[in-house]
């Protein structure tokens, strides 16, 4: 569905998306990496359970929220990929351990 416009070579890093390794370019946002990996849906909404995925790509709509490195509700479009990053899609509201 999405293709990269810039094609010159760049360093790649590997992140994990729902447990599967995905090779992406350094400097990509997590949201761009998800879309290039064909993952249009990153979460479901807390109240109705409707599917949501990256939309505005500029930090405004909050549709791209995912869990990154153990922290939920992070804006995938505003965060750059890092080697070894663990990205999990999110179902419903973020969980914070009440005892944490």
């Amino acid at each position, binding site marked *: 569905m999405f293709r990269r416009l810039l094609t010159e070579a760049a360093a790649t890093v590997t992140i994990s998306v729902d447990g599967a390794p995905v090779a992406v370019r350094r400097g990509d946002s997590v949201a761009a990496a998800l879309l290039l990996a064909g993952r249009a849906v990153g979460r479901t909404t*807390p*109240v109705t359970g409707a599917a949501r995925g990256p939309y505005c790509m500029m930090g405004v709509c909050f549709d791209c929220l995912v869990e990154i490195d153990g*922290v939920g*509700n992070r804006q995938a479009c505003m965060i750059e990929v890092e080697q070894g990053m663990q990205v999990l899609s999110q179902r*419903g*509201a*973020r*969980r*914070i*351990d*009440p*005892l*944490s």
Partner: protein
Amino acid sequence: MNSDIIVIGGGLVGSAIAYGLSRQTRSITILDEGDRAFRATRGNFGLVWVQSKGDGAPHYVKWTRRSADLWGDFAAELKDATGIDAYHRRTGGVHLLLSEDEVKDRTALMERLRAQSGNDGYEYRMLDPAEIKSMIPAVGPLVLAGSWTPYDGVANPLYTIRALHAALAARGVVYEPDRTVEDIRHDAGTFSVRAGGTTFQSKKLVIAAGNGTKKLAALLGMDVPVTPQRGQVLVTERLQPLLSEEVTVTSIRQTAEGSVMMGDSQEDVGYDTGTTVPVLAKIAERAVACFPALRHAQLVRSWAALRIMSRDGLPIYAESKTAPGAFAATCHSGVTLAAVHARVLAEWIAGGARPEETQKLVPERFDVPTTAH
């Protein structure tokens, strides 16, 4: 436009009264302001709360408890009529205490409230940290004690007002938004209310316009001295249940959708609905002291709303002596009192006897007594 009754104010107080009155007549017009109005209904915290209210005023404690007792049935009736769930839950409530002074003051307050309630009884317990922890596992080590009563609970004020307006519309009550009242006249038993360029007429008039009540009631010879008191609220992102759904905490609650709301500030700053960082920081600090896991939560919004405060903090229910048929009703607990306003206060306005608990809630209580020897 003519109707039997005009209600000025489409918030929780006016709507609850109109809903109660609509049992007797459907010829009711509600005149509301526009979106620039100071709407306490939209900005408030959403507790159906009994504990801590009414020290020295057992009649008000009784009134509040009567409303809390009626709320479950009131919410069920609204849901039946409209399909809208006001999310009322009578969970019992806990107020958390963070210092020895707070524990001492609260213990004394609860004991006074029990003593003042006499034969009505006043069920409460002071809880130790282990008891609180068993009710709400998220509670932190800085909490020294808590006061608990079975009377308290929550309701979502936004769903409540939506349900009331839907129920009113279904009964044929006319709702007129954007009708800021410019003038009220009383002549030969008829009230003429000019609002937004149109004159509305009725035989009976109820003013339930929040802080605007003072100015409007004065036009009909009623002195309703209320002033705005600002409260600031912080709200987090939606979270999976973090606080217990089994019990409600005074100023930190999680909505059914998952947002955590916090706020217990009281400021006298006039008609200013701005928020300030020092106050919000204090609210957040207390919330994190009570529930340390909240330090991980992201805040998404803050706002302020204006409570409607009388000098003694109690409601004012006035009946005009110079313009028979005119009433004024105002309070700072429009959510808690919604049920008793709809079920009981409206009966009085409709022509019944004044409810016993409200005998002292007249504006004359503020009159400076003339010297008596």
